[in-house]
């Protein structure tokens, strides 16, 4: 290609042009273009060649693994605190205080993901969603402890924008300048887990990309199939895809959540408990004031207390608690652990 063309050979400038003659330069360019096209196509063809078939739907699956968000080095401090009081603010502060204060869990500069349960488009009084006062207090404590940013996110059953608006959580996010992340299609990535049923599932990954600590803030609710929805089942809202299949193995799935998520802290809001018609509720008469908040590092202990003392039922029937306990994912016998019960 680099051969310089001799102007005297150019038919345009020659005295007696041969109309069919082509300069050497042009000849090389044209044969080069043709050869280049063949060579390029052959190279690309071989490069892109898929010589083998695959079996659709059975491809090997990969996914991310969540880090462990627990904090260590809390000698002698309780792993669970039960606080009784009149308001969310007082009671939550008392419970966290009994655990050693939020500074035990949150260091300066932490990015904290708070996971409320906003599954339904319901007002706070119906106790089907995390109460805005609960979120406000936890978020304030986290910010007071020096967190640089608080993210709140959930993948609700009902329309996400409606859920966050009507549960009053968007107002809290606006008030305290929290990052509210809605579940968008791009927010999800596959999660890999060696669970009893949960193996590879699409996960609401976006809030965890920057988070260094994770706190679950869950209401205490009756559930039609799972018996109860508390701090363990709260993580359901981090999954995407065909969640309606979870009900085929609900207790296995919920116990797998204890494997999937190792949170920094969970808070069970038992100020007003949805006693029946869960998980949606719908009547104020379904709600019973219990004036209690349970906070702890072991969601199985917390849920165990919630089931027997807040929902006031027999723990023997709550299969997921036993599954998780037997797999060593938590301790359902909270009385055997270090715990404190305080009055706000």
């Amino acid at each position, binding site marked *: 290609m680099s051969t310089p063309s001799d102007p005297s050979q150019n038919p345009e400038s020659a005295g007696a042009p041969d109309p069919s003659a*082509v300069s050497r330069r042009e000849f090389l360019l044209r044969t080069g273009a043709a050869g280049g096209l063949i060579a390029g196509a052959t190279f690309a*063809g071989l490069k892109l060649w*898929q010589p083998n078939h695959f079996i659709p739907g059975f491809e090997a699956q990969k996914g991310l693994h969540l880090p462990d968000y627990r904090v260590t080095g809390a000698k002698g401090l309780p792993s669970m605190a039960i606080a009784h009081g009149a308001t969310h603010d007082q009671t939550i502060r008392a419970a966290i205080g009994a655990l050693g204060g939020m500074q035990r869990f949150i260091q300066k500069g932490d990015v904290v993901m708070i996971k409320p349960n906003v599954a339904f488009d319901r007002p706070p009084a119906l106790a089907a969603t995390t109460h805005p006062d609960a979120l406000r207090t936890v978020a304030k404590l986290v910010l007071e402890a020096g967190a640089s940013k608080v993210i709140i996110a959930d993948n609700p059953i009902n329309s996400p924008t409606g859920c966050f608006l009507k549960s009053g959580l968007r107002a809290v996010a606006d008030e305290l300048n929290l990052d509210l992340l809605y579940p968008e299609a791009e927010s999800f990535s596959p999660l890999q887990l060696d669970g009893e049923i949960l193996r590879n599932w699409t996960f609401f990954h976006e809030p965890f990309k920057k988070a260094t600590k994770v706190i679950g803030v869950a209401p205490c609710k009756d559930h039609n199939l799972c018996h109860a929805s508390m701090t363990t089942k709260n993580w359901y809202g981090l999954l995407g895809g065909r969640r309606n299949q979870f009900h085929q193995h609900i207790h296995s799935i919920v116990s797998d959540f204890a494997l999937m998520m190792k949170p920094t802290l969970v808070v069970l809001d038992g100020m007003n408990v949805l006693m029946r018609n869960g998980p949606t509720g719908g009547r104020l008469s379904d709600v019973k004031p219990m004036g209690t908040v349970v906070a702890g590092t072991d969601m199985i202990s917390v849920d165990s207390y919630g089931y027997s003392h807040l929902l006031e039922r027999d723990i023997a029937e709550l299969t997921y608690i036993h599954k998780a306990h037997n797999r060593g994912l938590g301790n359902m016998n909270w009385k055997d652990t270090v715990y404190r019960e305080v009055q706000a």
Partner: protein
Amino acid sequence: MKIRTARRISQVFFFSLFLFFVVISDLRYLKGYPVSLFLELDPLVAFATAITTHTIYKGLLWSLVLLIPTVLLGRIFCNWICPYGILHHFTGWLLGKGRDEEKIRIESNRYRSIYQIKYIILIGMIVAALFGSLQIGLLDPICLFHRSMSTAILPSLNLVFPHTFYVRQYFHIGAWVIGFMLFLLVGMNVVIPRFFCRVICPLGAFLGTISSVALWRIERNPSKCVDCDLCLKNCEGASDPHTQLRKSECFVCFNCIEDCPEDALSFKFVPPLQHELTMPAVQPRRALLGAVVGFGFFGFGRSSGAADRGYDKKVIRPPGSVEEKEFLERCIKCDQCIRVCPTNVLQPSIFTAGLEGLWTPILDNKIGYCELNCTLCSQVCPTGAIQRISIEEKTGLGKFAAQGPIRLGTAFYDHGRCLPWSMETPCVVCEEVCPVSPKAIFSREVTITKRDGNEITLRRPYVDPALCIGCGICEHECPVTDEAAIRVTAIGETRSRERRLLMDGGDTSAVREYESRKR
């Protein structure tokens, strides 16, 4: 031998080869013949699927073989090899008898600006492909011809001459649309000779674009030419050999060389560029229009939801099919699967699979069912829309026991139409024909008091969703033939994780556990 004779021999050979492949695409004759060879040779198929999937599936690499002569000699494919082009060449001659007068023929073969439409169509299809919607098969001549033969021509010939192509008559939903489209395109030869090839053909446009770099072409010697225009008399491509040759339009039929009384035309190596129009003449704004319309196939088609949450329960894809969005990236609507299917279950979708899925294969269990030990559709699929699976992979046997069978959907009972469920009549044909072991359909014996007071014991059938593979033979054999009492819908298909029914894929099914304990 005159070059025209050589060309005619080539045309007869390739046309016959095409028909041979069409006819032998049948379980009785198929013995490893490369029946999808023309599709694999088609560079537009390889190019467009490479855009959508970033891969070139198996035999599509053969398309390089066709690319090379095009780069060297131009669109030689169009008039020497393409069976659809040959059809139009022949019918154009047959229907063009009214153009016997030399002058009329010359005029009918002059280039017209509407011949740029094919480039605009090609641009639209490439834009759709860039977004993941493969639409070339709507008009690609090889796909179009295969589809017309498989769904319309052979079945209608078989109606007139029974048992020529099928042991039992085949039916194809929407065959009349495909058949009349073929008639329309052939009939247009009356208006414009080789209407399809000159105006519509996206493959011709693709090869025409490539042939802009071709090293050989028809060259006119202006000092010999007497401007008689006789070269236009039989010009197939309407490529203006009487003046500056439109390189991208020339079919390299060589008629002009033989028709020239002055020997002014020759097939020349690297002739001067000023004697040709190298690139296709396409007005940029019309090209933009083509691009916008092409986007519509993706934009409007995809947002209609048929490939997503709005999917139709009847979009049951052949075994080995890839997930729906990838299916739309791969399927060229050639309907080779439909041709080869031994039970006639495969049908061209009209709009069941959405706009983008026009003419793609879906199962209609009223007409046929998916034969358990058969993967013929996957063997002939040139693009891997149906991956070339083995029987073991399909049925989940041997090495594939752990992953289980490929499921096409799940069967559901309609109790109101089921004889033992609501009509006091014994039946369970469905259980009898269920091909998997243990059977996915099981029945429970019940004794009921009939309307006349007598007792009857009959069996009422149930489906175990962990075992059902969605083959549809239960639906096909159900005596309630207008709308069966058991029907398969797409839910539960393994190709799509979003469309599964059981979370564990049936792994924790009681029957499966029981079976494994027995072993």
